[in-house]
């Protein structure tokens, strides 16, 4: 296999910190350090090993040499993608994204189906004055479980008189996961399509619902003039400024699970917690592994579309067990990937998993 060396692999001193912090190492054959090492040598890496990476970014954030091992892995994946040597489930996701701008290949025309559930009038971005774009993730758009998130946010914004618009059918996958799967060309196309949409409608700020979208828009799109933020940031502002008022109790023991793309990769730790702390009766517990050290749910980096071949105890399951031992009744998340992966495991433990907007909508006056 041939590797591109766009990263700083040669500054790697093989300290092993990447492996030591990797949420997949020890339980799966993924050894980040070894992959970087082999990359230094141009030696063979077993293809399948590359797909264990969840793109949580822990190795990259912590690497003392700033080698960006995640990027090394994405580069190597991209070699596989170029050679066409990828699993059918990943292939399907990519082809679907090419075709319908979402990895499930669901009709683009149904992208804004959630809007009907909101019960409020949702404008197209072109019909708005402030050009504040609410950008949903493909997951929000097509997973019925996650519809509630854009629905809640649009309700909250509408009731608070905050203008926003959506792209509707024109909305297009942000490509965060696509880039991490290694399909750089497709990522570029998605980026171009999105940017041309933003330009066409003179979008001024983008309210993202998924940390994954926020991440790529902020870091990989080069949009210096656009303000990109996550909805927890806006919600906290709204609470702090009294635009929305919390009027009811939420008498439960709650733990907030930091999504990798919001937390460790983008440093947004406090806003979601502020929101939860401002709710009467809610007892906010902390996972031992929280904030920068939050345990990856394993939803990202294409893992949503690709199941690795070894079987092991999933992080989501471990996470739910941690919550169980803490006595948590509700795990609160702010990322659709986390919502889906954790909820799947939490059902059996009798723990609820909720998006933070779901809680907020419950306690509003």
């Amino acid at each position, binding site marked *: 296999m041939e590797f591109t060396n766009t990263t700083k692999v040669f500054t790697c001193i093989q*300290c092993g*910190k*990447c*492996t*030591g*912090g990797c949420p997949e*190492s020890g339980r799966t054959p993924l050894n980040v350090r070894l992959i970087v090492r082999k990359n230094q040598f141009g030696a063979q890496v077993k293809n399948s090993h590359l797909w264990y990476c969840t793109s949580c970014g822990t190795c990259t954030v912590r690497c003392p040499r700033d080698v960006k091992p995640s990027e090394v892995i994405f580069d190597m994946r991209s070699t596989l993608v170029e050679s066409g040597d990828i699993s059918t489930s990943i292939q399907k996701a990519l082809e679907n994204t090419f075709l319908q701008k979402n990895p499930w290949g669901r009709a683009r025309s149904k992208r804004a189906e959630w809007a009907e559930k909101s019960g409020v009038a949702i404008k197209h971005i072109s019909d708005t004055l402030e050009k504040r774009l609410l950008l949903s993730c493909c997951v929000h758009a097509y997973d019925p479980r996650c519809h509630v998130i854009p629905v809640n946010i649009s309700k909250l914004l509408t009731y608070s008189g905050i203008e926003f618009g959506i792209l509707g059918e024109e909305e297009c996958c942000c490509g965060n996961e696509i880039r991490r799967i290694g399909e750089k060309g497709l990522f570029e196309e998605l980026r171009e399509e999105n940017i041309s949409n933003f330009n066409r409608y003179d979008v001024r700020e983008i309210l993202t619902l998924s940390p994954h979208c926020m991440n790529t828009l902020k870091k990989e799109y080069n949009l210096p003039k656009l303000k990109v933020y996550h909805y927890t940031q806006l919600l906290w502002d709204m609470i702090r400024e009294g635009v929305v008022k919390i009027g009811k109790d939420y008498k439960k023991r709650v733990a907030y699970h930091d999504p990798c793309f919001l937390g460790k990769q983008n440093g947004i730790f406090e806003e979601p917690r502020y929101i939860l702390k401002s709710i009467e009766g809610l007892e906010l517990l902390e996972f031992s592994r929280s904030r920068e*050290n939050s345990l990856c749910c394993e939803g990202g980096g294409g893992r949503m579309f690709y199941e690795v071949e070894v079987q092991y105890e999933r992080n989501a399951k471990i996470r739910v067990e941690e919550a169980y031992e803490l006595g948590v009744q509700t795990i609160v998340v702010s990322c659709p990937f986390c919502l889906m992966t954790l909820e799947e495991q939490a059902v059996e433990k009798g723990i609820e998993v909720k998006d933070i907007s779901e809680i907020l909508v419950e306690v509003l006056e």
Partner: protein
Amino acid sequence: MMEKNVLVIGGGIAGISAALELVECGIKVTLVEINPSIGGRMIQLDKTFPTLDCSTCTLSPKMVEVALNKNIELLTLAKPIFVEKKENRFTVKILKKARYVDEKKCTGCGNCFSGCPVYMKSEFNMGLGERKAVYIPFPQAIPNKATIDKRESRPCKANCIQACPINTNVPGYLRLIRDRKPKEAYILIRSTNPLPSTCARVCYAPCEDVCNRGDMDYPIAIRHLKRFAVDNFTIEDLPIPVIQKNEKKVAIIGAGPAGLACAHDLAVKGYNVTVFEAETEPGGMLRYAIPEYRLPKSELRREIQYIRKLGVEFKCNTKIGQDIGLPEIIRQFNAVFIAVGAQKPLKLNIEGEKLDGVLGGIDFLKMVHRGEKVEVGKRCVVIGGGNTAVDCARVALRLGAQDVKIVYRRSREEMPASEEEIDDLIEEGVKIEFLTSPKRFIGRNGKVSEIECVRMELGEPEKDGRRKPIEIVGSNFMMPVDTVIVAVGQIPDTSFIEGSELSTEDNGTLKVDNKTKMTSLPGVFAGGDVVTGPKFVVDAIAHGKKAAINIDRYLRGEELQTFEEEKITQKLTKDEILFLKEKFGRETKVRVPKLEAQDRKKNFFEVMKGYNEGEAILEAQRCLASKIEGCIECGECDKRCEVKAINHEMKDEIIEKDFDALIVATGFDIFDPSDKKEYGYGKYNNVITSIEFERLSSVTGPTGGDIVINGKIPKRFFFIQCVGSRDNQIGARFCSRVCCMYTAKHATIVKDRIKDSKVYVSYIDMRAYGKGYEEFYKSVQEEGVIYIRGIPGEVIEGRDGLIVRVEDILSGELREIEVDVVVLACGIRPKKEIFELSRITNLELDEYGFVKTESHSSSITSVQGIFVCGMAEGPKDIPDTVAQAGEAVASCLEYLL
């Protein structure tokens, strides 16, 4: 040859070595050190590698040598702030920070530390131990003088101290509560108050009235915070001080707050104190007038019990002038303190006051508290508007009266009872008939059955500023009643003075010299309500304490002290308020927890409940004095310093001096691993840094050399190397050079001190350069220390300790190792101050911030006449540092001569 003068910047091993060598060569040296003591990092180390010599033993003599050498001028707490090179001389301005302790007077005795309520992390012990705001960093400090760590001035005027009749150090104990030291807070309170628990419940808190925080939002709930301190202290555990008994006997008449306070203070001073009390139990009004729901008697008894333990004898059921005469007492005792209080209820002097069912307020309360059965009937009316009236009404309610009313002739504004008490009363369902006055009591069969009342209106203000109530003619009405309690005030009962030379004032109080508390009879003092008329508990205590001081002086034949009653309190100015609001914002007062009205009005359970810790800390940190770092200028140190060395007015100085050359030996900083969240430093208290480990293992450290963490001796250790070294992300790509070896040293210390310990060291590659180092590394391994190649990715919480996740690179296996302690071998960072120094001296630094030197000579810098040695130039070990100091001196001499 002209005398040469060299400035050495930095008092660590490099600076000390350089200074000592320079004076050897006849050069005069000024050694400036930014810290209060010289010694640098090396003095913090336990042992040095690879020889495992005691670091303190090696360095201390050199430090002493510096102190003793007349040719070394030592300036501590100092740093150069301006350097100008003129021809071959450097003009240097040195900022010498105020120490607030006169170095010449200070003997280093350490008395000042003990009273200081401000605990701070000890820099010497890397925060593992505490020091006070006034402190000497470590016993071997040079100079061995106290320093006050004053960082900013107190934003408030500390009126609370002034307003308190006994000058309680309120900011001090609030600070201690804030710092989770309620026991220390209690001790501080107790240092001026023998009845803290009582005051914590019933004091009228004049401190709160003048609290500057009240100028901003709400005054601090000081009394409740005192209550918190009291609740968190078991008085039974309070040790009896060593008392030097004398032969002198003092009689105290009346076991109320004044008497108790006086007895306490005199007993501590060694006097034989006998307290005469008419009632069956000591306590006075505290015992017999203040209701149980405000002050549980058990609390009072515990405080009195402590006074008994001090040797005070109580003679109860002994009424003066009845059971024993005053002259008799004066004859038997060397001094007397009269504190009988004001026990006689005032009368209304209206018709029917003698009827059955008409009771005096204080009499009523006493009856109840003696345990006598008092029938109040269904309808009870209390006449009066003071605290006694309120107490009577609430007691009557608790005794079963269904309809309790207070009749008061003025409006609520004029009511002298405390706001809080009035609120509670109304909450409990007592009605107040304002602007109403009784005209006469009408009886049936000799028992009161009705009151004829009349409505009042307010007229012109009287002398005391309150508006005079005037009867509204023809507004008379009848009020049916079963019991009437007249609580319109008390006066002292001074009948016992008959036949003595003592006399009373016109208002019936005992005549004393107000400034000394002595009566006209030498040796007979008086205080409390008997002198002042009904006042507050803390005023009585203050009198008792003042009397105690003067009784002591009297008995020792000293001149009596005169006490000024004047209180100066200062409000914040508008600008100050604005500034403080901006800085700290509005903070709501933490609500004082109390029993709900329906849960309390039928019983005598204590109404107020104490704060829990969280509430107390939250409230205490509102104190403006608690908002500042360092000294809060509470005055405790000053009180204790015998040589009066404390000087809060001291100012920073700038010393200007010329030098022929400079040697920079500013040393280094240690990487702060807080940002490496993955290691949990700051989150888990068993993750420590290597320098903290040094302190922990050092005999001069906080544990005296026992490696104890969280009260336990850890068995499993994990040392992580290269934390903050070879790290691009923090801009430190270099190897810190010393970590491999000092970690090996730590590992061997653990193995040596904890026999069955398990020690892991993780490393990237082993750097053991230097003579004997390789052998040292080998011997450490032979001791059973397990070296793992690979740096852990994270430290997470395990079932029974911390789990270190590390890839053993040599096997490619990810290991999750459970340990008790993780020690982070933090790397070397350039000293923060070097950047400033570089700016003022034009000294060039390398890309990391170390002083750039010529390649062939490691001490020659980019500026002629300025030399460098030690870590300021780059990471190196102690032998190299000392060697480089020598080289710097040699280069310097070469330059100078």
